[in-house]
């Protein structure tokens, strides 16, 4: 490399950075039309709910082979049901991985809802709720992994839940550290996870 090229290198890098930033801004501007965003979110959530419905077939099928779980004074029966259900679900979806339910479009919709929550009027309350509930910053749940038995649950800000699609009773959204986790309650199992979306 001759000395002339070396001298011009910083200018070239600066120009490239400016072009990239300009392009990025144009993209961002194009995407910030509220109508488009709302439509994209609706489509993303719809896609997500289709996958939730598919998962529920798996859950129901996995549970159908087990004796119905009714209130009992024998905790071992509750634990046994939980463990066998988790086992059956794992068997039914051995290749399950992150993104099966939180697909690309779904992820964008959830990210947008979370961003709105934590940067809008409810932000101070929502942030306080997270801090209040003994958060678990270092934990990342893998798909098909059980929720750690001794770990507390972080309260999911109820104003955030108002922004998410409604789930069947068997599933809940959970916040684990900075991740949003789709959680199978009876099986105590992570169904899918969205990493690093919670501030």
């Amino acid at each position, binding site marked *: 490399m001759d000395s002339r090229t070396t001298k011009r290198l910083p200018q070239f890098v600066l120009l490239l950075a400016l072009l990239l930033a300009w392009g990025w801004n144009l993209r961002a501007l194009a995407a910030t039309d509220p109508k488009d965003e709302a439509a994209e979110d609706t489509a993303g959530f719809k896609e997500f709910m289709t996958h939730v419905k598919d998962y529920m077939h798996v859950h129901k099928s996995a549970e159908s082979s087990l004796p119905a779980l009714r209130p009992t004074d024998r905790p071992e029966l509750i634990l046994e049901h939980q463990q066998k259900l988790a086992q059956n679900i794992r068997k039914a979806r051995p290749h399950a991985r992150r993104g099966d339910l939180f697909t690309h479009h779904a992820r964008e919709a959830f990210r947008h809802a979370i961003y709105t929550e934590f940067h809008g009027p409810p932000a101070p309350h929502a942030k306080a709720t997270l801090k209040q509930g003994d958060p678990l910053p270092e934990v990342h749940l893998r798909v098909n992994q059980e929720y750690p038995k001794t770990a*507390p649950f972080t*309260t999911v800000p109820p104003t955030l839940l108002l922004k998410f699609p409604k789930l069947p009773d068997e599933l809940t959204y959970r916040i684990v550290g900075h991740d949003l986790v789709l959680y199978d309650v009876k099986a105590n199992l992570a169904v899918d996870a969205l990493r690093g979306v919670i501030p």
Partner: protein
Amino acid sequence: MMSRRCLLFLSLLFFLGSNLWGDEFKFPLKSGSVRFAVIGDMGTGASEQYQVAQRMAEVHQRFPFDFVIMLGDNIYGGKRPSDFEKKFETPYKSLLDGGVKFYASLGNHDSPNERFYKLFNMNGANYYSFKKGNTRFIALDSNYLDPKQLSWLQSQLQNEGSGEWKICYFHHPLYSSARAHGPSTDLRLLLEPLFTRYGVDVVFSGHEHVYERIRPQKNVYYFIEGASGQLRLGNLKKDDITEKGFDSDRSFILVEIVGDQMYFETVSRAGDTVDAGVIHRPVPQKTAVAAAGDLSSALMVGMKVSWSAAPIVL
């Protein structure tokens, strides 16, 4: 000389007697009244939980409450069958054997599947309600207050007559002066409008490992009892909303509802009364309190005061 000594002795006896028994708070123990105890954040399995449970069993002899409401963190740590035994069945054995029922709500340390544990009387639901006498009890799951639970709560409150007491209980407090967590303002945003609109009278919560009675907020009375097993010593930073606080030992609350009056007493692990009073349920919408030792809040909301402070003996 003898007669003067005798007079002095008699005066002393009279003075002691009037102080010990004259202004005592006593539960009415009326037939048909609603009698219960309140515990929160108790399921540690440690000796302090056992000591509180023992004190509850002793008190039960004199104040036979029919049931206990649990404000969450019922089973800390592991959830093996042996944990249920160590952290619930054994400490409360004498009460359970005596037919006392326990109605749990879920805390952040509880497994959601505790709702299937029969002795918690949740009947498989993480939120539910039940009625005792003239009182509707509503147990909420404050870990996960989704729109479905909110609309269920609204329908429960709508369907209840205005002549009934409405008591809600759940883990996370809407108001708190404790340093560890503070109030759940996000929950408050959604729950308080329902409580005030539909005339909820009293709310019990845990999570903070102290006892605190909050001044009535929008005519709703809030108690925190999160020290029936756990304790955060000296954690209360009493402020304007604090009516009474206790953070130097474990505690539990006793309640008796007779007509439009709710008598309450908070008892420490050592058996001392740390707070007591009576809440008068005004007709038709307002709720107010006459508290032992501090009448200011009661006067502020224009209530009738039924008696003044005194040591309470059951």
